[in-house]
């Protein structure tokens, strides 16, 4: 069964009246947000994690894509909520008039919060059950780098 990072109930913790604006169902937007979070992790976390696991010369022969079911959903719930609100939900509600409306301001707010939250997750260490043991060991939630200079 595919992992679910967030539901409408999670989003309503941040925006309780979000379903009162004329769109009663945001499941498609939440799914898109979840896929975007996975994509950001593939871009920003997985390459560094792979380098830590495999020899650089073997990178392309190892696992090339993370298994999304091995993430810890609860760790990514908040980021998914911010992603959904900032990139998929509020853009639909905003009028994009000359003067910013409330929805456009919230859209920008949640985009910043998403960037901040994802950055904190990366610095804290993405929880990934690499050996599919059912539990995430200490080694499976270590940060992949510690603000080292990467070149």
């Amino acid at each position, binding site marked *: 069964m595919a992992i679910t990072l967030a539901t409408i109930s999670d989003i309503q913790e941040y925006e309780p009246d979000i379903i009162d*604006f*004329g*769109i009663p169902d945001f499941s498609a937007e939440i799914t898109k947000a979840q896929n975007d979070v996975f994509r950001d992790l593939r871009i920003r976390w997985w390459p560094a994690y792979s380098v830590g696991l495999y020899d650089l010369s073997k990178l392309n022969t190892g696992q090339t894509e993370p298994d999304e079911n091995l993430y810890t959903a609860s760790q990514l719930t908040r980021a998914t909520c911010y992603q959904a609100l900032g990139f998929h939900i509020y853009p*639909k*509600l*905003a*009028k994009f008039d000359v003067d910013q*409306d*409330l*929805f456009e301001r919230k859209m920008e707010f949640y985009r910043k919060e998403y960037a901040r939250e994802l950055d904190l997750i990366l610095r804290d260490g993405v929880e990934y059950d690499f050996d599919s043991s059912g539990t995430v060991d200490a080694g499976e939630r270590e940060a992949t780098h510690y603000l080292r200079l990467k070149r």
Partner: protein
Amino acid sequence: MSSNREHAVKDIIEILTDMSPPRPVFVSREPFDLDKLALTQFPALLVTAGNETREDHAMGGSRRGIIEINIRGFVRSDGRKGFVQSVDEKRNNLIERIEEALNTTRDRRLDDAQAATTHVTSIEVIDRTPPLGEFLLIAEVHYSFTKGEL
């Protein structure tokens, strides 16, 4: 004690909220700030009970009243769809649907003894800067009642 004015407004709001498309997304009895509505909350309606005239129409305390129900509608011609209707077209379609919905049950579900009927009596187009459009539709509810507390 039951207010016929209140009953008529509640009935109209219930019907307008439940009518077939183009259905208003946001229906309120409280005045609202248009700038605070989301793009997806249009068309929006403000429904309020307006002026009323009352008079005796038979002996024995039988009276009749005519309540004006003010239905103020707001439409936007922009949106996220590829096909964009003009403000005028959206406004006309919404007015037509409101009148059709009100005519479905014209007695406003008041008691038989109150013999109510509803007519749309005027439609005023209010100038707004595009893409916004606004109109004021007045529906008169005619009803009978007996004086005194029921």
